[in-house]
């Protein structure tokens, strides 16, 4: 039921009045339909734009900042990297396979708009408890959808993160990111700059996908049964692959001035945004659109969300050449209109103008200032009754390794072709981030995304500042310099002040850490209304931060596995008793409350610079950022990956305020790394740390044994077998999913 049932739109009273006033007349039915979709939160970002503007978005390397389909940064040697994150939460919750697949389809298109070749995908997922059948069903089919679509298009899915929490039980999160590479001089933008240019619609034919029969009073649609139309679109990765190759080849002609993909809001959104950005107008003849179904109305044509479609803006002299490329690839296309200088989107059919609206009204709906109010009981979430320390800590380590949030995600990434393209130098599971070499240069990029939803719920400011910090640490761990981020925000209903408070605190936290680390945010996505209709339970606030790092010397590439017996183990950064939101508290003790770790710029800078210098001076090639599960799990995974044991004195770990052993082992404090280095390099590392104002201490030694032995002074408190740890860690998720190991 629409907010304004008379006009059949979701615009508020204020918005409809505003439109009439600006336009100076009453819009017709088709125009209302176009406004309806452009004023939706999904297309307009009207609730979030005012706050998103506060994110730092400039740096020397930024070529294209927020506001376009992808952010673009310069990586040297004449190359640029485009990247973006998108969400497809609601479709995936009801049709996980097609929802996730078309999510991948959409994000690939965003990168294509810049004329960069998509070279990597990331999947960022949140599900409920895997003991729940419905959650397992969602998990299984989301992964399958991403796998089949990504693999088919030949783009490797190289990194990602999956985590589990009850708040995502019915509202799973499916965020996907894509990275592309191209030449700076050949960059295109989603803009219509020059009147006279042709507008060409390319790709899949247009049908009634994405249009709900009940929404539009159209005779043809009401004849069809609601049940004959799927609620989620179906993607065609083969068509997408052809679109990718044809797009890049068409852009090579030099006559393509702008490219935009058709996603949410279909043709309406693409035409409005492109003409608005270019300060021009556009006129299209709907009769020229190549269609899949008969008798589509103008509104249906303007709102269809049929997949695998792109819009090209082509210089007149090159039109024939560009169309030839599409013919060779057997890609359906139609020349549907031209760029004008009217500043309006003019829609014609059968010789008549059926809609005419200024691009600006469509593309820049007025913002809505929402109220942010901290929930009265929020600070009560920080109260906790500390649990008794378990006697058998060895057992706790095995249990943590087998909890889905920490367990191996091989079940997921083995279904993704992560090697296609022969760029993947550091593969999934080997380190804290993936590393892709840039062919024909001597450099590589690192990509990773992170967000601890539990931290973000307990303290949205610190949780999100921490997300930026953690993902910066992730790329530094593989030898990269962090250079830019994009963020995928997932929240509940923004009309509720408590939810909007979470959102504004999240942005505040990200601004704090981005400014402190001097990093720009070059784009992102906001998904609101992720809540359960019945219970009103919203997902835990989750703004996933994806980091792009640059590695200018391939010799700096590092991974987390212990490599050499005799290497000394060093912990950089201080551990605090910050247990709130930790996997240890949640999974072992069932405690969901507590204060999560603080994220402080100076501490992060100190640790990050220490590790950067250590890597560049050749002091270490074994680095792991310490996060969920704390130091014990970090050490365990470094041992498991290397197939080597270690002997560690946990009492040597730099700490403050920590009085309990379990807190020292499992605290998830920020700004910490674990390194392994040969004896003669240790002094240098400790000196770098001192210079950067952070503590660093040798805590142990890598051994050629099957034991991870952790001592507290003289007492051995943990003795885990490396092969047993490997087994419980890698079998946990396949077992839960009932799959053959």
């Amino acid at each position, binding site marked *: 039921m629409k907010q304004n049932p008379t006009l059949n739109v979701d615009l508020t009273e204020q918005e409809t009045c505003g439109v009439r006033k600006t336009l100076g007349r009453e819009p017709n039915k088709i125009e209302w339909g176009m406004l309806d979709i452009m004023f939706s939160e999904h297309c307009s970002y009207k609730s979030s734009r005012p706050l998103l503007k506060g994110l730092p978005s400039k740096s020397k390397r930024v070529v294209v900042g927020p506001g376009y389909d992808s952010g673009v940064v310069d990586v040297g040697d004449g190359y640029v990297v485009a990247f973006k994150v998108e969400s497809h939460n609601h479709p995936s919750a009801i049709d996980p396979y097609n929802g996730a697949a078309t999510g991948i389809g959409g994000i690939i298109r965003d990168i294509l708009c810049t004329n960069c070749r998509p070279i990597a995908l990331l999947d960022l997922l949140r599900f409920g408890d895997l003991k729940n059948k419905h959650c397992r069903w969602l998990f299984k089919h989301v992964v399958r959808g991403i*796998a089949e679509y990504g693999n*088919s*298009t*030949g783009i490797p899915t190289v990194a990602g993160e999956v985590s589990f929490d009850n708040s995502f039980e019915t509202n799973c999160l499916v965020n996907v990111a894509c990275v592309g590479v191209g030449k700076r001089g050949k960059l295109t933008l989603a803009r219509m700059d020059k009147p006279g240019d042709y507008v060409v619609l390319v790709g899949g034919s247009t049908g009634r996908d994405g249009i709900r029969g009940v929404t539009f009073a159209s005779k043809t649609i009401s004849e069809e049964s609601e049940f004959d139309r799927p609620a989620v679109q179906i993607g065609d990765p083969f068509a997408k*692959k052809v679109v990718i190759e044809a797009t890049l080849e068409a852009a090579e002609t030099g006559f393509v001035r702008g490219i935009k993909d058709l996603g949410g809001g279909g043709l309406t959104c693409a035409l409005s945004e492109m003409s608005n950005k270019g300060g021009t107008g556009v006129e299209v003849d709907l009769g020229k659109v190549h269609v899949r179904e008969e008798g589509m109305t103008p509104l249906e044509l303007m709102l269809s969300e049929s997949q695998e479609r792109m819009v090209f803006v082509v210089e007149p002299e090159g039109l024939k050449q560009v169309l030839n490329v599409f013919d060779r690839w057997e890609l359906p296309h139609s020349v549907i209109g031209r760029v004008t200088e009217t500043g309006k989107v003019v829609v014609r059919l059968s010789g008549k103008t059926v809609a005419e609206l200024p691009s600006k009204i469509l593309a820049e709906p007025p913002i809505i200032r929402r109220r942010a109010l901290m929930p009265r009981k929020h600070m009560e979430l920080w109260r906790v009754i500390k649990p008794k320390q378990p006697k058998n800590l060895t057992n706790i380590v095995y249990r943590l390794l087998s909890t889905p949030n920490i367990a191996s995600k091989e079940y997921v990434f*083995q279904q993704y072709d992560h090697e296609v*393209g022969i760029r993947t130098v550091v593969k999934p599971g080997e380190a804290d981030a993936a590393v892709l*070499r840039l062919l024909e240069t001597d450099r590589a990029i690192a990509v990773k995304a992170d967000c601890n939803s539990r931290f973000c719920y307990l303290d949205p400011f610190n949780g999100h500042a921490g997300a930026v910090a953690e993902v910066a640490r992730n790329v530094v761990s593989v030898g990269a310099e962090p250079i830019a981020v994009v963020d995928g925000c997932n929240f509940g209903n923004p009309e509720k002040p408590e939810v909007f408070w979470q959102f504004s605190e999240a942005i505040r936290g990200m601004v704090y850490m981005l400014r402190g680390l001097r990093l720009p945010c070059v784009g992102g996505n906001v998904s609101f209304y992720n809540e359960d209709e019945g219970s009103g339970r919203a997902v835990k606030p989750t703004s996933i931060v994806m980091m792009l790092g640059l590695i200018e010397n391939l010799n700096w590439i590092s991974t987390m596995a212990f490599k050499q017996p005799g290497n000394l183990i060093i912990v950089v950064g201080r551990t605090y008793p910050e247990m709130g939101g930790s996997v240890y508290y949640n999974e072992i003790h069932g405690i969901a409350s507590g204060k999560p770790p603080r994220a402080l710029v100076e501490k992060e800078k100190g640790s990050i610079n220490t590790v950067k210098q250590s890597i560049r001076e050749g002091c270490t090639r074994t680095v792991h950022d310490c996060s969920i599960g704390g130091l014990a799990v970090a050490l365990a995974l470094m041992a498991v990956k290397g197939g080597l044991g270690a002997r560690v004195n946990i009492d040597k770990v730099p700490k403050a305020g920590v009085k309990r052993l379990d807190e020292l082992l499992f605290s998830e404090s920020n700004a910490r790394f674990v390194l392994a280095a040969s004896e003669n390099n240790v002094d240098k590392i400790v000196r770098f740390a001192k210079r950067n104002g952070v503590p660093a201490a040798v805590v142990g030694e890598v051994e050629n044994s099957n034991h991870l032995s952790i001592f507290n002074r003289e007492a051995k408190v943990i003795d885990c077998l490396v092969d047993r740890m490997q087994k419980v860690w890698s079998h946990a998720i396949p077992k839960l999913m009932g799959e053959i190991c």
Partner: protein
Amino acid sequence: MKVAVVRFPGSNCDLDVLYVLRNVLKVDANLVWHRSFSHNDFDAVFLPGGFSYGDYLRAGAIASHSPSLPTVRKMAEEGKPILGICNGFQILIEAGLLPGALLRNSCLRFVCKWVSLVAENDRTAFTQLLQRGSILRMPVAHHEGRYVNDEEGLRELEENGRVVFRYVDESGKATEAANPNSSMNNIAGICNKEGNVLGLMPHPERASEPILDPCGKTDGLLLFRSMLEFLRSR
């Protein structure tokens, strides 16, 4: 010496193979659109991996009707080296240039991981530089890689040394655990009677540079260099 890499709609690994041929092996390699692969002035041809025609109907089924196949057949008859990698292997089988069939992996999932292979035939156009019995490491990445054939077909392959690569564990044993897709007899790659047409599921182009190999080796490159050796001696 000129070699061709045929590109079908949906091919993904064409650029990867081309990169290895041009940048690592340094040969004159051309990317040829399948509809344009009609003239016969190439010394070898590669059918790369990917999802030609989306793998719709059956992997390689639609591509096997491509107008490029008659030229490929002619080159095969002339004894020129022809390598089908992954989807390329599927196309060669669908086109009848190699026997048997490639079905869905028994685990019903796409599998992407590094595997060990034993080289059992060192006389094909792509294995002359390999030692019989040597173990190579290469990645597989496929959904439909399970090799099947009837009893007679399998016997013909085994008795005539036409099984070129077999999935094995690190010690060289052809175990069930080492078989990523449950192929019959752990078969990973086979050749034709003459030994100039080879099809395999693993991707040698992904194991041709030390930076991409977790162990820093270049086992995949041996297949490409063997081809050069074969052509030089013709």
